[in-house]
């Protein structure tokens, strides 16, 4: 068999596949809105969280369309509009709309990367919920597409915009970032992150999907499985095939802060290990307990994730403890009875010294995205950073699923000497749903 070159294979493959996958408008590239224009938005995924994003953003910029594979979600979201809003079940119809400048993607996690890539190729800017992708390969495709299309992509780890004047202004992550980057802790060598475990799911029987849900489109790139009410809508998080558990959910927030605080957005671990405990009942398969260790080099850094009851502080809701050569700092990630954000008064009121590092202060996560759409500058959580954060989550889960530590090349972004691990990190999508 004649060996195909990569270029000819891709060209032939794309020609064969495009008519089957992409609507005609997807490859078009409409103009970007000017500095004084309104940004016309489309909302893809309007379940609970997606509707929340929609309600906030449409107060600032007009929403031209909403999309969901569940007509109940569409009907519910539409009630937030005074006038009729265009409704779609297939996100590609939203991408076909030349009048839509940008889309907000809040679908189940298995969809994020594919919809983000298709949206950017259709000329849209993208706000996508975390995690960015199912696999390392998908994440790389999102980064490549954002660069190739010049798209502005912001991932929804809003901690990088805290304190947010439109949100919880008591969460002083910006001050903590400046404090750490200016050496307030000395050299940070270890970060301990923790969060409660995944729950035990119900043991419900499979059944035909409800008439209001397009089950095949809900699954998208995921392995085919029979409909079960335990799988969706919100509970998808607790299945490895869709959400990947709390490591990929809240962990993405905590790890986003860690890479941001330590200025290691372009970096990745060289070694990843994980142990965990499977749920003893119910249909959820994400580990009840999970301990992950990521080891970085140059300079050395160890980040750990602990997902069980033995936490190093009272912050049961999720937090991180930064250990430097001079001192440590607790940064809580969510509100609980022990408070939220940064309790340390010195850090809460920290101002960088003259000539010191003063990281960009976002005006709010959504506003920063809107601003960057107009200015074409890079937002606080762009594709490349989002990919590195998501990669940590993917690698942690993969080390647990494989039952062995992974040696990882953060430049090539491949497991070293472990081809089965690379299969897991690049596994294909189902049918047409791949990038």
């Amino acid at each position, binding site marked *: *068999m004649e*060996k*195909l070159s*990569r270029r000819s*294979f*891709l060209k032939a*493959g*794309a020609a*064969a*596949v495009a008519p*089957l*996958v992409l609507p005609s408008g997807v490859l078009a590239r409409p103009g970007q809105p000017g500095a004084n224009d309104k940004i016309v938005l489309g909302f893809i995924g309007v379940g609970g969280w997606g509707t929340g994003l929609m309600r906030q953003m449409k107060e600032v910029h007009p929403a031209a369309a909403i999309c969901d594979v569940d007509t109940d979600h569409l009907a519910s979201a539409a009630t937030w509009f005074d006038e009729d809003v265009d409704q779609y079940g297939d996100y590609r119809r939203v991408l076909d709309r030349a009048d839509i400048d940008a889309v907000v993607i809040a679908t189940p996690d298995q969809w994020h990367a594919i919809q983000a890539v298709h949206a950017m190729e259709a000329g849209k800017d993208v706000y996508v919920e975390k995690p960015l992708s199912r696999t390392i*390969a998908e994440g790389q495709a999102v980064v490549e597409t954002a660069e190739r299309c010049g798209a502005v992509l912001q991932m929804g780890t809003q901690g990088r915009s805290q304190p947010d004047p439109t949100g919880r202004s008591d969460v002083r992550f910006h001050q903590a970032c400046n404090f750490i980057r200016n050496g307030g802790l000395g050299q940070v060598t270890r970060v301990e992150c923790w969060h409660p475990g995944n729950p035990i799911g119900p*043991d*419900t*029987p*499979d059944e035909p999907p409800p008439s209001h849900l397009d089950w095949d489109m809900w699954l998208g790139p995921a*392995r*085919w499985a*029979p409909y*079960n009410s335990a799988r969706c809508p919100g509970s998808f998080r607790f299945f490895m095939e869709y959400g990947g558990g709390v490591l990929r959910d809240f962990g993405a927030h905590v790890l986003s802060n860690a890479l941001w605080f330590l200025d290691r957005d372009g970096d990745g671990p060289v070694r990843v290990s994980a142990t965990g*405990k*499977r*749920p*003893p*009942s*119910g*249909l959820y*398969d994400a580990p009840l307990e999970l301990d992950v260790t990521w080891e970085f080099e140059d300079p050395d850094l160890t980040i750990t994730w602990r997902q069980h009851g033995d936490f190093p502080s009272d912050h049961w809701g999720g937090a991180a403890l930064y250990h430097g050569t001079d001192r440590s700092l607790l940064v809580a990630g969510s509100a609980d009875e022990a408070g939220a954000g940064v309790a340390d008064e010195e850090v809460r009121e920290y101002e960088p010294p003259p000539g010191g590092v003063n990281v960009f202060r976002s005006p709010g996560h959504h506003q920063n995205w809107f601003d960057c759409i107009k200015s074409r500058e890079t937002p606080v959580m762009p594709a490349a950073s989002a990919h590195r954060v998501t990669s940590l989550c993917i690698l942690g889960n993969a080390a647990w*699923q*494989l*039952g*062995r530590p992974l040696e990882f090349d953060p430049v090539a972004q491949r497991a070293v*000497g*472990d*081809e*089965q691990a690379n*299969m*897991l990190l*690049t*596994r*294909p*999508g*189902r*049918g*047409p749903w*791949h990038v």
Partner: protein
Amino acid sequence: MNLHELAKCFRLGLGLAAAVALMAAAPALAADVETIIGEDVDGEARFEAVHNAGELGTEAVAPLAAELNAENTLIRRAAREALEVIVHHAGRPGAEDERRAVADALAEVLAEDHDTAVQREVLYVIGYCADQRHVDAIAAFLNDPELADAACFALVLNPSRASVRALVNAFAEADEDTAPIIVHALAQKANAALDIE
């Protein structure tokens, strides 16, 4: 000595000692598999056994696969996860013989008359351990509309020229239901094309 090593001893003709050891080990294997797929098993014990299923190896593949369509959804989940653990354990670096043996055992299941739910899950897991020798067993499902997705998943992961050839050949025979699925598998195969010798 694990079961696979014992089986290897048989193949190498190392004889009576291995036979005695295997006979001693078999009841333990049966007990472990029963803990995973038994009806009245404590959940903690069931999933502890799943966690440790890697060492069960090829002998456990067929009985676990048979439960992939169990009425009891928890048994179904345990069987699927145990097979994944076995495949991932066998796929560790330096365990080529184990990987091949587990893939052989899964391919044998594919060759048997099982229902769609069983074959689908076996196709998904064999993808992570199959090689050129298992392509035909997987490709047999490429023109089944219900299983073509899973067969494509396995062949996209398969690191052989034979997997590309199987997809191309199946496309020539495909109907309107399976042709688009196979085309997309070929498109996904593009990224791996440079690694295929």
